[in-house]
């Protein structure tokens, strides 16, 4: 799904996430409101659903709107994959759906793709 299909503007308040960031598949809360900053960065992410099974060459898409998180312990619930190059991929902590974003090891910044999560009130 391309980023532009979704209205992200409504989710932003003072540059931060207005509502909770949740897993699209199981509703696990990934970030609580007002804990991440909106950021535009182009980054290619492997697709959640892969059509082919080649591990070295996963299907990817370019994603450009992210919730940026400085301190990994800001996350409510999240999984960090093993390291691939300079990054670790982020997953849902409860159902392992992912990648929902990535963690950049040199800068210690984490980025959650808005197109890969849902937004809503915590249950």
């Amino acid at each position, binding site marked *: 799904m391309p980023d532009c299909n979704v209205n992200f503007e409504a989710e932003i308040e003072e540059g931060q996430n207005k509502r909770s960031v949740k897993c699209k598949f199981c509703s696990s809360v990934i970030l609580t409101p007002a804990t991440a900053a909106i950021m535009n960065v182009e980054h290619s992410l492997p697709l959640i659903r*892969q059509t082919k099974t080649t591990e070295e060459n996963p299907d990817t898409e370019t994603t450009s709107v992210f919730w940026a998180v*400085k301190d990994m312990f800001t996350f409510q*619930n999240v*999984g960090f994959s093993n390291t691939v190059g300079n990054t670790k991929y982020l997953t*849902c902590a409860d*159902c392992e759906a992912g990648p929902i974003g990535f963690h950049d090891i040199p800068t210690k910044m984490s980025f959650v793709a808005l197109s890969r999560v849902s937004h809503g009130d915590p249950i």
Partner: protein
Amino acid sequence: MAKKTYDLLFKLLLIGDSGVGKTCILFRFSDDAFTTTFISTIGIDFKIKTIELRGKKIKLQIWDTAGQERFHTITTSYYRGAMGIMLVYDITNEKSFENIVKWLRNIDEHANEDVEKMILGNKCDMDDKRTVSMERGELIAKEHSIRFMETSAKSNINIERAFRELADAILYKTAGREPGDNVDRVMVDRKPTSSSTKSCCNH
């Protein structure tokens, strides 16, 4: 800039013989879980989970440990910063149970001396293949004065409960020792070293 969203941070490790189910416990993946090919291929290093205990927001950082490791190769750096250890055996695998004693010795030698431990007898869904009785699990735990529980990662039995109990034990220990604020700082400061070492050296 960002406000602090938690009160305490506990680093927990999963330890035990190869094949006992440590990765499954971390993944929690029962059959209904949404495990994608890409993520399961690269594997999960650790998870961050937030729980509430006695009115406190607690972040658990739970690490899996690599399977091929044997107790004699695991040393201090492995345990650095760990406040809780889940020691896992497989109730259908006698050897993995016998090795619990060796793991305990290794923890005594290398981990922080007040690390909180818990023994998990995993795969309790496979009762027909059981070789280690629940009583033997309870006994060894009693001998070493540590908690014990039988779990199943596959059927999702007692997994959440085990982590909550271990966290509760750590909370109890830390709260009883020092005033809250003080403890809090120590733990939060401890985290960057442990996490960055692990991320760079792991692969």
